[in-house]
Each structure stands twice: as C-alpha cells, then as structure tokens.
C-alpha cells in the first residue's frame, strides 16, 4: 500500500515530468422526486427494507412503466444547465445485463437519443475558469441495494428493492481533466449546480450523488489517448481523488517498465486504498441496447423547453462572479457565500434591504456559519431572517450596541429568530452612552484600583486597558468603549 505522502510526491513526478494524466468522470445523481421513475412508490431514503415496492419496480411479468413528468423535467433541467444540445425527440432503451439488484434483468436507460448531448460546464480552478465538455446527460432507473452478510463463508447476498426504480441522472464528461484539482472542482461545481437547480439532494453519504472516474496516461505532447481504466465504487469525493492518484501512479509505473495498460474496470478498495481489477475489456458486457417498447418517446417542443430554461436560477459560478463584481467581495468570500444556495440567497436578500455588502458578508461567512457549525443547525431551516440581520447592522451603525454585544445579540437571533431590537430591550443590552453614568462607574473603578493608577502614571500604558476592562465589566459590556477610553484618559491624566 502506498502511503499518502509518497503518493503526493510520486504524483507530482507523474504529472510534471513525462506523462499527462487524462481524466473523465461519470456522475450519477438520484433525482429529488417524491416517487420513482416509472411507478408511484416512494423514493424516501432509509425506509424499512422492501416496503417501497410494487409490481412495476419489482419487475413482475406484464407490468407497464409510466414515466414521471417531474423526473423527466429535472433531467431536462440538468441538460440545459450543462449547456447541452437538447434532443427534441428522445426515447428510452433497454440495457440488458444480469445482476441480482436489477429485477427485470434490464435497466431502462437511454442510449440512442440521449436527452442532452455535447454540453459543457465552466468551473473555477485555482482562480481561473476552465471548461469541461459534457458528452451526454441522460435519465435512467436505479438498481436495488445488495447487502453482503458479514459472517465469513456466507454463500448468499440479500436484496432490498426500495431503491430500484428511483430516477437516476447520468452525466458523462469528456476526458478533459488533467489534474486532481480540476477533478475536485468539477465535482464541487457540478454538485452545486444540481443543488441550485434543486434537481438532487446530492447526499453522497446516502448514495444520491456518485462518481466514477476513467483515467489514462499519455506522453506529454502526444495527441493519442492511452488505454483508459474505469474505476468504480468511489464513495466520496476524497475516494475519487485518492483513486485517481493511485491509478495515475500505477499506470506510470507500468509504462516506465515498458508494459502496456489494459483497458479494464477496477474497483476501489476504500480501506486498503488501492484498486483491483473487476473486469477486462474482453469480458466487458454486451448490453444489447434496444428501444424500450413499453415506453413511448418524448418530444420536447419550444414552449416546454423555454419553460424549463426559465426555471433555471442563476448558477453558482455566475453568482460568484456577480458578487465579486457588484459588491466588491473577495473571490474567497464570494466562494464561501455561493457554497450553499441558501446562504447566497440570504446575502442577496440582505443587500436588497440595506446596502452593506461587506458587513453582511462578514456576518454570514463568519458568525452565521460558526453558529451553524457549533449548534449543528440545519442551514435550510434557519430561524434568523435577512430583514433581522439588516436591522442588527443598522443598530450597530447607530451605536446603540457595541460590536461585542452585537455578537451576543446575533447568537440569540440565530437561536430564537427574535428581532434584534426585542432581544436588546429584553436583556437590557443597549449601549450606555450617558456621560454621567459612565463617569460614576469610572470614579468607582479609579477609587478601587489606586496601585493601577500609580502604574499608569509611571508610564505603564497597558494599565489603561485594564481600567477600561474594569469599567466594561462593571457595565456588563454595555458602556460605549470609545467614551470610556476618552473619559478615562481625561480623568487619570497622561
């Protein structure tokens, strides 16, 4: 097994020296419909095994599938968002193979007239924009889930068909990526597009977003692609990156020894961090695609297509660029904001109410995200509203509360959804700017700390900070710090 540091060093050698790594990705995303692609069974994750099933998704004889309009539209939406040419005539095909998670012994998929072809996706890689071409986008049905018993020597597997028939979107890229940074950005950007368009919940831990990589190496400057190796069983974005690094090194070592690369499919072993041959090209399957006679073709007219186009929101990369340009945010801050659509929406709402983009950006990217993380909040059901954050920013500007108190108020707002004004009044948090009141506290602090006053007069400057701190403590942080500072200096004398 290769340890991580050596992988990193070796990969640098692979990438920088002789070879160019050529990478393409296949992405599967379960669509966020309530029901399955061809029947009314629920798609909800985590149900009791074999309870979301019916004769259609169990592949019983004589049943007829009927396509979900929503699933079709979601797939269409993805194809449009990925700048594909839309096949106005599209149909479904049977892909035949035997596997126990596939009840009909064929999967209904698309082969001859994919929904979308020849698209592209722009993504940001280390600060510059890179375009990856999309070969096709198509719709198909999920397989069931196989459970392999842990007992040693077990001669059986178990099947749960709850997942069978869930609508699955497949997005196939061209082999346009050359580095793991590009792969990382591709996965992140695509995930965000699927989330922004609300096509999929993209929960990798529940398998609703999955990637398969194909990797080949060629001598730098060579036009001809090397034999490609496909890698399956990649359960996280981290695994994708690790598997690509592993595979690039494996292939480069073979090539260095003068050996050839077999075109094959390999399985990634998450624990051992290595891949193993699953099947070679010779053993590759003959799917015998033919048009699915139980489903009629779908024609997409101009009206329908324009409805779909209009339903696509501003996509993450466009939004990021707008944030940088319009609000003068840093590339990094804009990147944090667009990471989650709800955060970007929140920010947009705030700046509509009050023109303080920098302040809102800070509150959202620092304080809000910290609260969400510390309190394990669901970012999609936040209690705090943009209007309330705008009020808080106004209150701070007026000097009603100090920035320290504001943090406390903000935390309360996030937890309760209460108006900032109400929290400030309820807890008596408003800043004290009453000169007389502050003076009386200062006098008390001076009287109580004669030795500190002596130190200060002897030139110990930080003694002043201590005194300010004492006044703030006495007023529970509510005294106007600027006033306290000025009045203390005046009182004690320089």
């Amino acid at each position, binding site marked *: 097994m290769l340890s991580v540091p050596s992988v990193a060093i070796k990969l640098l050698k692979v990438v920088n020296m002789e070879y160019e790594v050529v990478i393409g990705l296949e992405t599967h995303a379960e669509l966020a419909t*309530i029901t399955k692609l061809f029947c*009314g069974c629920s798609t909800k994750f985590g149900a009791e*095994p074999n309870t979301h099933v019916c004769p259609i998704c169990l592949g019983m004889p004589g049943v007829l599938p009927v396509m979900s309009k929503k699933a079709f539209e979601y797939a269409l939406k993805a194809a449009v968002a990925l700048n594909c040419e839309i096949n106005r005539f599209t149909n479904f095909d049977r892909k035949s193979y035997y596997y126990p998670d596939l009840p009909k012994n064929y999967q209904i998929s698309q082969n001859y007239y994919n929904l979308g072809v020849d698209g592209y996706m722009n993504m940001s890689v280390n600060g510059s924009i890179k375009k990856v071409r999309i070969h096709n986008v198509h719709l198909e049905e999920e397989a069931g889930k196989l459970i*392999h018993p842990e007992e040693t020597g077990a001669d059986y597997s178990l099947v749960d068909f709850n997942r069978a028939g869930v609508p699955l979107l497949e997005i196939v890229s061209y082999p346009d990526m050359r580095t793991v940074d590009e792969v990382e950005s591709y996965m992140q950007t695509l995930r965000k597009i699927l989330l922004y368009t609300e096509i999929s919940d993209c929960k990798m831990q529940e398998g609703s977003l999955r990637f398969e990589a194909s990797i080949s190496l060629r001598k730098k400057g060579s036009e001809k692609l090397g034999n490609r190796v496909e890698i399956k069983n990649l359960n996280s974005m981290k695994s994708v990156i690790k598997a690509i690094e592993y595979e690039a090194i494996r292939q480069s070592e073979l090539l260095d020894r003068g050996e050839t690369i077999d075109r094959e499919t390999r399985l990634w072993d998450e624990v051992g961090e290595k891949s193993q041959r699953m099947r070679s090209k010779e053993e590759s399957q003959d799917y015998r695609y033919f048009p699915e006679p139980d489903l009629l*073709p*779908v024609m997409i007219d101009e009206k329908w297509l324009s409805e779909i186009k209009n339903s696509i929101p501003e996509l993450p990369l466009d939004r990021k660029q707008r944030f940088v340009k319009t609000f003068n945010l840093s590339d990094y801050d804009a990147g944090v904001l667009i990471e989650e659509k709800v955060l970007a929406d929140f920010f947009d709402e705030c700046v509509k109410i009050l023109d303080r983009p920098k302040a809102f950006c800070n509150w959202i990217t620092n304080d809000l995200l910290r609260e969400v993380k510390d309190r394990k909040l669901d970012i999609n059901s936040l209690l705090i509203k943009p209007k309330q954050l705008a009020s808080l920013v106004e209150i701070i500007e007026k000097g009603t509360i100090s920035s320290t108190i504001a943090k406390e108020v903000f935390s309360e707002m996030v937890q309760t959804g209460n108006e900032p004004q109400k929290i400030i009044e309820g807890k008596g948090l408003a800043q004290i700017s009453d000169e007389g009141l502050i003076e009386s506290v200062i006098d008390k602090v001076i009287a109580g700390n004669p030795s500190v006053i002596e130190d200060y007069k002897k030139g110990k400057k930080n003694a002043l900070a201590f005194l300010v701190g004492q006044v703030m403590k006495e007023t529970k942080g509510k005294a106007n710090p600027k006033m306290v500072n000025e009045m203390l200096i005046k009182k004690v004398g320089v």
Partner: protein
Amino acid sequence: MKIEKKDIEYIANLSRIELSNQEKETFIHQLSDILAYIDKLNQLNTQDIKPMAYSINTTNVLRDDKLEPPISREDALTNAPSTMGVFFKVPKVIE
C-alpha cells in the same frame, strides 16, 4: 449472416441457458433460417426511410409525481424463490 456454433454459445451465455451439443446444432440451422428470412428486407431500398422503433404515433405519456400505495412486504417476497427475513435472498454476489 452466417451463424456459427460460437455465436450460439455466446447467445446462450448471454441468456444464461445451457445447451446440449445437439441443441446447438438445431439452433444453428433455425437461427440461420430466421436471419435469412429477415435478410429479405435488405433487398429493398431503404435509403430515405428513417428508422422506426415505435409503431403508434403517440408521444409524451407522462404521470404526475404522486405517491401510490406500495404492496406489502409479505406480498413482495411471497413469490421469490428464496428470502431471508425482510430481504430477497440471492446467491453470493462476488465483488
């Protein structure tokens, strides 16, 4: 197209069926006859004819994303050749 023994064996393998030597011989002739018959279509000029996969002129038969009741797990499992608890049981899948 000439059908050979290896074609029959390939198709049998795809279909997961076992054939005796005698059956293979029989199917070589039968399949060859069928293909020869279908091959008559190649005598026609189909240059300007678009491929047709669907014989009726209807498209866009779609349903709403509306839940329908599932069948009970008991019913789902009842015809399976083998089950275990709440699952369908199948021969070990070698990963």
